């Protein structure tokens, strides 16, 4: 497979407080290894991985899978960068929002990250997966699963307890996010076959109207 040989280039962005394990999470996903080095991310970085996506939705096109080139952006969680990384939000199609299950503060900050996302991402309800990382450290756990689940439900986003160390749920989380993105795109594609007039009203209508049409409304396609 040569470099440009893929169907879609999808960009994800990992975010969350510093030290929650964004870098190791992505490293575990792309290289299936745990990097135990304690290194602070400098600025912003990215990793890449190729995957094949098979649509399994109800009306999904079966047959050959889509070749996806995943670009996973890794941001520095330092406070200094919090306002800066938002500039990169707009370029990402999906978000991996991480917190540290052993740090209550990082969990509390999930709200802040969410509001940042809602404000700066490409639309008001971008696809996000919430990951409570370091779930292997059971004895140091500070956030209950129910609490996290509840918060995720409140935002209507999937939640996973992950461990970059053991690899638990890491690829699942990314796959679910990818699935969300692909579904969203399919919806877009579907609608593009709808006659001109309807498309117009969807594509250019006011947000008020769109917000009425349930969860998939706002990012009207």
């Amino acid at each position, binding site marked *: 497979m040569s470099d440009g040989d893929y*169907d879609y280039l999808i960009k994800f962005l990992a975010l969350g407080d510093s030290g929650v394990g964004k870098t190791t999470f992505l490293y575990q996903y792309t290289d299936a290894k745990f990097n135990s080095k*304690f290194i602070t991310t400098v*600025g912003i970085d990215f990793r890449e991985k190729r995957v094949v996506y098979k649509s399994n939705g109800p009306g999904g096109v079966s047959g050959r899978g889509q070749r996806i080139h995943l670009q996973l952006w890794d941001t520095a969680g*330092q406070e200094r*960068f919090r306002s800066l990384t938002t500039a990169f939000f707009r370029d990402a199609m999906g978000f991996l929002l991480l917190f540290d299950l052993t740090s209550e503060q990082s969990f509390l900050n999930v709200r802040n990250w969410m509001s940042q996302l809602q404000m700066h991402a490409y639309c008001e309800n971008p696809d996000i997966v919430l990951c409570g990382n370091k779930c292997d450290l059971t004895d140091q756990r500070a956030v209950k699963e129910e609490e996290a689940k509840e918060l995720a439900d409140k935002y209507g986003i999937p939640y996973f307890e992950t461990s970059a160390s053991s690899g638990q749920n890491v690829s699942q989380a990314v796959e679910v996010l990818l699935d969300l993105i692909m579904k969203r795109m399919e919806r877009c594609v579907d*609608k593009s076959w709808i006659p001109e007039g309807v498309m117009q009203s969807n594509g250019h209508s006011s*947000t008020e109207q769109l917000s009425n049409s349930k969860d998939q409304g706002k*990012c009207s396609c």
Partner: protein
Amino acid sequence: MSLKLPRNWDFNLRPDANKIARSKSMMPAESSSGPVHPGSASHLERPLKTGWLKKQRSIVKNWQMKFFVLRGSILYYYKDDKDTAIQGSIPLQGTQVNELLSNPDEAGKFQFEISPVNADRDRVYQDSHVLMANSQNEMEEWVKTIRRVMGTPSSGVVFGQRLADTILYEQKFEQHQVPILVEKCVEFIREHGLSEEGIFRLPGQDNQVKQFRDAFDAGERPSFPSETDVHTVASLFKLYLRELPEPVIPWSQYDDFLNCSQHLNVTDMTGWEHLEKQIALLPPENYSLLSYICRFLYEVQLNSSVNKMSVENLATVIGVNILRPRVEDPFSIMKGTLQIQKLMTVIISHHKELFPKSKDIPPLSPVVKNDNKKSNVPRSSVGWDVAEDPTQSVTNNVKEGQVLSESAEDLTSCGSAAWGERGNDEKGSLSFKLRKRTQTLPSRRCTFSSQGEENGCTEATGKRVGVFSNDFWNLEPSSASSEADKNTLSEDIFSALQWQNVSKCQRSSVLNKSFHSDGAEVRRHYGGTWEAQPKSPQPKMENKSTTPNLTPVPSSPSTTSRELLIPKLSDSGGNNIARKDMRRSLHAEELDTEKGECKTASYEIQVSSLQKKNQELCSKVEELEKELMQEKQRNKELEIRIRNMEAAHKEAERQNQELDKVLQSFTSQKLKGRVTMPI
């Protein structure tokens, strides 16, 4: 089959463009300070900040959306951003601004309050205003900006205050080499955090950080309770550095410092020499602070086997708070981070050579440097003897440096004796600080041996820079497809620049050299004023024993740090003449008759009334002088702003052109892609 983006992302993003456009006015911090403002033409002064906020009505308590414009020290509000009729205004002079901590049920209500300074926190005053922002960030921006507008050195505000002003203000309490906040943080972390994993990397508790910040800003200098989370303290420390209106490495030196990092390797000594030169150029307060920080970080990394914070890690997390570019655009910042990390790594690990202890600047340095100006500054109460005896002040003038630095040391030791009860725990550090300042600049060359690592770094830089230069603009999947989109993008960038421009201005910029030196001068006068204060109790005693008839005028305890040279001078001059006259006649009286004592008493009363008048006049002069200074400063700021505007405009145009090119190439690429679209 090389389609990178499905065509329909465009549709996705179209309504989104609306959203962005809409939020432009909603997010003042980022974009709305563009060219269109209500009434901007009618006011000379450029708004420091504009944007939408909700304002709570005073009686009904419901919220109303208003467009706020901060201009000068007045916060105006309008019905909307096109309206030119002012609906109301909130003068900020004599007020304080506080974030209202929201309780969990009210999450998402980002409220802050502007109330009179002396207002009781619990009571709601008629003339206090409660405002609500859209987000935490936005609220913080507003509060910060408003504080900056109100912030005078005498108010004790620490965050967002110029380093020199803070040092100056705090000399009132004790002699400090670095802000008290920094000392407290470092002491706390030294005690509790050296073996804490991820110290300085992990964030603390936001609300606690804010509470401490507010406490310091309210003029308190609290010690941290021992149960405080050490990461909170570390976060506070980083926040302080970040909020300095001008970073520890001044903007004028930012590029020079970064350039040093490129030449820092074994074969090339130029980088090292440049670095030493740049460090020598730092203002004394900044030098002290940087040196202090690096010394402490070195201590922290000695424990890196436990706390896992190696020099590189510390350099990453602290460096970005110390070195900040003037124009805060995310991409140049991200580009700079690697260089910053490399540079900070060197500075921390070689702090011994770069900041030799022999070059430590005692806290009184501004006074010592002050030379002849200094002897003109009346030393408040100390001045009795000195001012009366012209020969003595002449010798003072002649001897200069040495004598002055000695007397400065005397003063502090007196001060520390007099203030012993208060600051007994500070004595140790005082004696350390009192080390004489040597003027020689050691031009020692230090060997620097970490080639492998450095090379690694360079390579990495290359790679990452590549990321930025090649990849970034292609990343804009959305906005490249049509002419309209193109415009939006460039507009965005332009407005972003505009915003940066504004924020630059808010920081009251020391960009202008002449302005800078002005500031320095004022600072020196302050130094003179403060330096004398701790001594006041002592000379009073001496005077009483020698000339019992006369009580020296203690320097007015209310002296603000705004005090200027001129009023002081006229004060001492006037005082001198008056006092001399009184004294002469007093002597005559004593020789004449035994009743002298009685008369002296009456004279004494006269003296004191004269002195009182003198002081009154003096304070008037001060006030006027203060106004004049402010006026001047405003003028200069305006000039700077105009210059900044022009620069930003040019830059924007240039970027616009570049963008056009990129977009065109991208569009053509995209068109190709569409042809081969699968579906």
